[in-house]
């Protein structure tokens, strides 16, 4: 069966093992807080599965490494060793090390490195023995004979256990020439005979070069279910034969190339979908087929008296199409818990390093987000969490001095609000240091002085490029990315970040994200001969301005007053060069849009309507255009471009600066 390549199971093995490692980490952290036996069992099982899989799927180094961890966990499981900080720490490092190994395995690189070898020894030392650096099994000695005499008397119960004497005799026959004699001296009288019991025995002469080990192998499963004796046939013992024993795992190891090839085929992204979502889809498609059949009746001839039925059918079709669309979108939705999961570990490590005590609350882990959004939101969240622990939460002494408990609280919460997902990072730390931020901003030349600056504006300052308040950048937050990068990442996802802070009471970061990137709710607008779609989430208001409401400023910019503030006007027809557009401000409409707290007015001809737009990539089909985030197909088949409000505002402020 050499056609079955073990490599085809690698992907599943990697996936389940990485999940297993996540579960192991979660359980370890829970154990750290005082856990129970079931936690220990689940940790052991995860390690055990990885070891078994690694050995089976051709990763002997990983199997050997995990074996040491498993041995130690086995001692804990059996109560021979207490769970303490040292063990948890060691196991957490083991989890990290294994993640590294999986990473390398997926890239076809050698698995073991100096670090993993050192950790392996450390695990072995903790378990109270030394790990073999390399697999070196002493060659087992075998004895051979010109033949054997085997006395085999199964216990009565052997048949019930699924072992069949005939099978054993057949296997012996494969080892050499057999001469079998049945022993029926224990056969009961007919009336007492139970056919499910075994009453026979055999005396077998096996001639040939079979080793004692080979014979023992045949009877391996039934040793405890029979009386067995194996004696050399001839009195003269044959010369012992040494048998080379190859390390079993080595035979299974595929070459590095094969692994790399297997890894490269794993690149295509995949989504694991809950069965009920798929069942829901199948139901909906079924409904759609029924509706289609109903509408089909009207194809041949149409009787006006059946108009109501047609209308009903069309309404049904619309409803089903909508549900189907929602369900299909739902397939891409995954719970944010998979991102939240990494935080208990991060928070634990970080707070220990900084001598702070932090309690992490995760709320709304089941809130679902588009897979693409989910993948990209991890880094910004990590940054905000690091930031909260590094800069926001105080050390116990300071907290006590401020009249708060020693333990700071950090809450990560995800929830739905309108058509968006909101993720909040809330700490009960010191809040933003207004003076330090203003001083820094002045020093960096972001503002000239700190007078008349609102708290809101202070919050905005930390999102400016190159801004960092910590006097000395620690190795925790200072990784070369600032809050400006966090904001840019979120804005690129079609979301926004806001900050709220109260001195002494803490800071709240609020990230608002779209449910999905594939479909947007938009307002269709006409500009000359063209149609543009403005995402509904960024629209504040649409207004018609009288001609005298617009002020022209030096440099050609136009401003209008909106809720006490002057906002710039972007004329879309000028921006995108549309012909036949209305020129006079009073003849068109101004849509006030907002992104990241900045507002502008978009000047258009008129509103056409509201619709859901399926976003098609412009880059994939044409090329990137500034101020445009994508394209969509309208109901009449024409193409409309979707405006990139954040991009337009950025372009506007650049123009202002120039």
């Amino acid at each position, binding site marked *: 069966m050499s056609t*079955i390549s073990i490599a085809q199971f690698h992907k599943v093995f990697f996936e389940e093992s990485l999940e297993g490692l996540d579960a192991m980490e979660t359980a370890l952290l829970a154990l750290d807080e005082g856990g129970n036996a079931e936690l220990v069992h689940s940790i052991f099982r995860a390690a055990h599965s990885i070891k078994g899989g690694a*050995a089976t799927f051709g990763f002997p180094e990983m199997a050997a490494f995990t074996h040491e961890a498993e041995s130690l966990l086995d001692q804990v499981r059996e109560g021979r060793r207490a769970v303490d900080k040292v063990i948890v720490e060691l196991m957490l490092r083991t989890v990290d090390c294994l993640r590294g190994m999986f990473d390398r395995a997926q890239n076809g690189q050698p698995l073991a490195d100096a670090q993993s070898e050192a950790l392996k020894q450390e695990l072995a030392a903790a378990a109270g023995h030394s790990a073999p650096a390399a697999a070196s099994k002493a060659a087992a000695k075998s004895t051979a004979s010109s033949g054997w005499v085997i006395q085999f008397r199964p216990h009565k119960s052997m048949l019930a256990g699924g072992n069949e004497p005939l099978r054993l005799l057949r296997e012996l026959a494969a080892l050499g020439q057999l001469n079998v004699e049945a022993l029926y001296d224990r056969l009961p009288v007919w009336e007492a005979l139970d056919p499910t019991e075994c009453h026979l025995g055999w005396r077998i002469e096996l001639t040939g070069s079979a080793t004692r080990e080979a014979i023992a192998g045949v009877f391996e499963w039934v040793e405890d279910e029979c009386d067995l004796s194996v004696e050399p046939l001839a009195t003269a013992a044959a010369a012992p034969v040494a048998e080379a024993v190859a390390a079993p795992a080595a035979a299974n190891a595929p070459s590095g190339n094969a692994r790399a090839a297997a890894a490269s085929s794993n690149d295509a992204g995949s989504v694991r979908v809950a069965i009920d979502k798929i069942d829901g889809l199948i139901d909906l498609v079924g409904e759609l087929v029924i509706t289609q059949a109903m509408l089909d009746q009207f194809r041949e001839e149409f009787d006006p008296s059946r108009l109501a039925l047609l209308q009903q059918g069309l309404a049904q079709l619309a409803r089903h199409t909508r549900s189907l669309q929602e369900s299909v979108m739902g397939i891409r939705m995954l719970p944010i818990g998979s991102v939240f999961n990494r935080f208990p570990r991060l928070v634990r490590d970080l707070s220990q390093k900084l001598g702070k005590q932090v309690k992490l609350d995760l709320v709304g882990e089941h809130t679902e987000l588009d897979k693409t959004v989910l993948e990209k939101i991890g880094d910004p969240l990590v940054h905000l969490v690091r930031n909260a622990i590094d800069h926001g939460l105080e050390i116990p002494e300071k907290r006590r001095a401020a009249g708060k408990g020693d333990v700071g609280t950090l809450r990560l919460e995800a929830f739905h609000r309108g058509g968006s997902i909101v993720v909040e990072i809330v700490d009960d730390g010191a809040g933003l240091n207004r003076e330090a931020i203003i001083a820094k901003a002045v020093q960096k030349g972001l503002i000239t002085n700190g007078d008349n600056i609102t708290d809101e504006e202070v919050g905005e300052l930390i999102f400016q490029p190159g801004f960092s308040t910590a006097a000395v950048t620690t190795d925790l937050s200072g990784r070369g990315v600032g809050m400006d990068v966090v904001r840019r990442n979120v804005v690129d996802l079609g979301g926004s970040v806001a900050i709220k802070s109260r001195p002494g009471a803490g800071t709240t970061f609020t990230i608002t994200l779209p449910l999905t990137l594939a479909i947007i709710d938009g307002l269709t607008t006409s500009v000359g001969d063209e149609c543009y779609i403005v995402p509904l989430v960024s629209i504040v208001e649409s207004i018609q301005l009288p001609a005298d409401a617009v002020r022209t400023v030096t440099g050609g910019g136009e401003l209008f007053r909106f809720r006490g503030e002057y906002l710039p006007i972007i004329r879309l027809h000028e921006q995108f060069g549309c012909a036949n557009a209305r020129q006079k401000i009073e003849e068109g409409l101004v849509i006030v849009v907002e992104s990241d707290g900045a507002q502008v007015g978009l000047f258009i001809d008129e509103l056409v309507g509201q619709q859901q737009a399926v976003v098609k990539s412009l880059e994939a089909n044409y090329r990137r255009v500034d101020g445009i985030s994508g394209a969509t197909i309208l109901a009449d088949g024409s193409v409309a471009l979707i405006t990139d409000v954040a991009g337009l505002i950025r372009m506007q402020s650049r123009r202002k600066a120039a």
Partner: protein
Amino acid sequence: MAKILAVDDSASMRGMVAFTLRSAGYDVSEAENGQLALDTAAASRFDLVLADVNMPVMDGISMVRELRQRADYKGVPILMLTTESNTDKKMEGKAAGATGWLVKPFDPEQLLATVRRVLG
């Protein structure tokens, strides 16, 4: 063709076992823990059961013990898929009623050889 029930909580391991056996023409059902295996085994009778030892919900040893209680599973071969480090598990499995065992790691050929050996 003989019907085989493969029980393992690891999807990759179960997948490998099932794929290998199906490729050889066996009719394979899968279960991801002992409890589900008992349910599946109640719904139809299998000619061979391959069971992992360490599983959540219900482990392989408890599963074998319960399965052997059932009249229609008397004499049906049940093999434990166990790791070498668990030598005591082999005997524990046997005591619970297992026919024998297959030591992990095994490759598709070893698996098929063992299954053919048992099913004849």
